[in-house]
């Protein structure tokens, strides 16, 4: 297999954190000739500053115009990282689906025509495995979900993966890498989960406790960068080592859990959605019920990458990086423990004194 370093890279979704971080790293690499960042909206100012010599192309990947961009620049590596999980952020569910699925189809159609394209990297999600009570504890890349995701982000991702596989069959000369990320977390990135854990009172589903596997934002950027620079075709699960229970994560962040009965979840969802705080779509609720953990053996052994942050460390970095103020400060808990212990010791010493006198 040829190991050609990329010279012209196109990154989609560059107005968002992860693609922007990738673009800025690639731009800092002198061996890469050009870095093209595509998005419909310009990046926010703080991200823009980091982008360096990245050429911003304000284009809609749903528009055939993207084919001209790819062919005229002679793009050899396409990183499709614009998959959005957030219906609130992208103007409603139907707009999000349009952007995710139709955008991918257009992008792939353009790539298929462009002879210059040698490598395609897709940022996908572990949500394609779904979340249910009938799943094995850990998903490997070879597993398919028991039932196809019924809607939302996971369904989009599953469809997009299908199109990318189809593209891989039609262009066997292109190396295709699909990265299934677990939930991302970190001090800077904005996701459904980072907003969720920042709520002072965190709604959970009564009677359920999910296993949550997280991936630190810096590890995610590194994995994307490695997939862009080296030829590592295949499907890879990407997640930090270890697991946090949802209830445990809420306690670690010093939040208070608010268990909601299954039946009342809809009402809570409406309240939170109108307040633009968090997403409790049926799919997200299933995730909060059962959670999802992936096997990352293939990532470590075949892809050759071990995430620096485990799930717990990534979460703690998020908590400290965001300056989340615990509702109950941990020092107070430790103090209370010490005080109770000394109290008990003095009490027992006082009881011993009269006994010794008797002896």
């Amino acid at each position, binding site marked *: 297999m040829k190991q050609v370093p990329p010279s012209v890279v196109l990154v989609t979704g560059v107005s968002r954190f992860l693609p922007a971080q990738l673009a800025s790293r690639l731009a800092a690499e002198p061996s890469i000739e050009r870095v093209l960042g595509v998005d419909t909206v310009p990046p926010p100012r703080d991200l823009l500053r980091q982008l360096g010599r990245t050429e911003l192309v304000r284009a809609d990947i749903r528009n055939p115009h993207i084919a001209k961009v790819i062919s005229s620049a002679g793009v050899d590596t396409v990183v499709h990282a614009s998959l959005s999980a957030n219906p609130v952020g992208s103007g409603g569910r139907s707009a999000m689906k349009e952007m995710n699925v139709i955008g991918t189809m257009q992008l792939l159609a353009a790539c298929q025509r462009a002879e210059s394209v040698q490598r395609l990297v897709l940022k996908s999600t572990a949500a394609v495995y779904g979340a249910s*009570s*009938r*799943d*094995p*504890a*850990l998903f*490997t890349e070879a*597993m398919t979900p028991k039932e196809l995701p019924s809607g939302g982000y996971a369904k989009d991702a599953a469809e997009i993966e299908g199109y990318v596989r189809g593209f891989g069959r039609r262009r066997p000369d292109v190396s295709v890498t699909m990265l299934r990320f677990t939930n991302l977390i970190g001090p800077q990135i904005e996701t459904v989960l980072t907003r969720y854990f920042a709520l002072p009172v965190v709604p959970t*589903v*009564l*009677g*359920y*406790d999910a*296993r949550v596997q997280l991936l630190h934002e810096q590890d995610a950027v590194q994995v994307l960068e490695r997939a862009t620079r080296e030829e590592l075709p295949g499907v890879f699960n990407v997640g930090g080592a*270890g*697991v*946090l*229970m949802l*209830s*445990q*994560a*809420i*306690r*670690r962040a010093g939040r208070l859990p608010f268990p909601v009965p*299954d039946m009342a979840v809809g009402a809570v969802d409406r309240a939170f959605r109108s307040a633009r705080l968090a997403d409790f779509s049926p799919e997200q609720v299933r995730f909060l019920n*059962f*959670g999802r*953990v992936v096997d990352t053996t293939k990532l470590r052994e075949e892809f050759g990458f071990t995430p620096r942050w485990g799930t717990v460390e990534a979460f703690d970095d998020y908590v400290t990086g965001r300056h989340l103020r615990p509702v*109950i400060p*941990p020092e107070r*808990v*430790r103090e209370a*423990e010490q005080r*109770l*212990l000394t109290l*008990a*010791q003095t009490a*027992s010493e006082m*009881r*011993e004194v009269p*006994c*010794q006198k008797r*002896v």
Partner: protein
Amino acid sequence: MPEARVIPLHTDDLAERPKAVDDVGPLNGADPGADTANQDAGTAAAKDEPPAEWEAALADLLAFARRRILGDYQVDDFGFDADLTENIFIPLLRPLYKNWFRVETVGMHNVPDVGGALVVANHSGTVPLDALMTAVALYDDHPAKRHLRMLGADLLFRTPVLGSLARKSGNTLACNEDAERLLSSGELVGVWPEGFKGVGKPFADRYKLQRFGRGGFVSAALRTKTPIVPAAIVGAEEIYPKIGDLKPLARLLGLPYFPVTPTFPLLGPLGAVPLPSKWYIEFGEPIPTDEIEGDADDPLLVFNLTDQVRETIQQTLYRLLGQRRNAFLG
């Protein structure tokens, strides 16, 4: 059960039964004894030791509470919370194990101290308390204090509260992927291959092993080359004698059966108290799988091995029953 009594398969394993019963006595008394020693520190010997023990216990308790409040504990990939299991679940089950069912274990040396092994046992009792008691037995009575990681039905994991408790106490869904992953990572795995057919069988069929599923557990052991430890549980059949089944109600509630016992639902919540039968759990000689010729995809090999395990458990059950004089006194 006349047919059970005719089989003369006595061994010396249970010869020291009376002694074992006596052993339970001081264990029961251990806790109140420690408490009273704290209160009257009259003797010179008791003066120094008990407060230290008592303080250590309090310190442990407070440290546990702190860990729980701050979320400062480890959970494995399957969701097993060892801290919670050791400090809450097993202590809650222990009185049932020691005082109510007075469980006696035989052949604990057949369960390896380290490494993966598959414990296969008979299932009974309408409510699967036998699985919980086996888990307590392997933690309390095994020298290596082993945690039994059981494979449960998907109904369990679908149910709110129960499902998350099951995961936290180390259980996972009965599927080959999970079984092999646990066994190859050196865990002690427990399976009850009869499933609902076994646990929900009528009282008239007690101690008759049902069909052993599809033998998935055998292929998991073969693939991971881990030994199979057959276990026979006597006493669990009598805790809730199921004399009837309200099928329409079961269908309505989505349960595999809705039991009628002499006390339930007649006495309401009181009927949920299990009868205090005397239990024996015998762990048999491990069946090694690492030297078996052939592979796990050979159905005939799997069926034969499944039959061998099933037959071993059935014979052990008959032998234990033959030695038992009374279901409640042992």
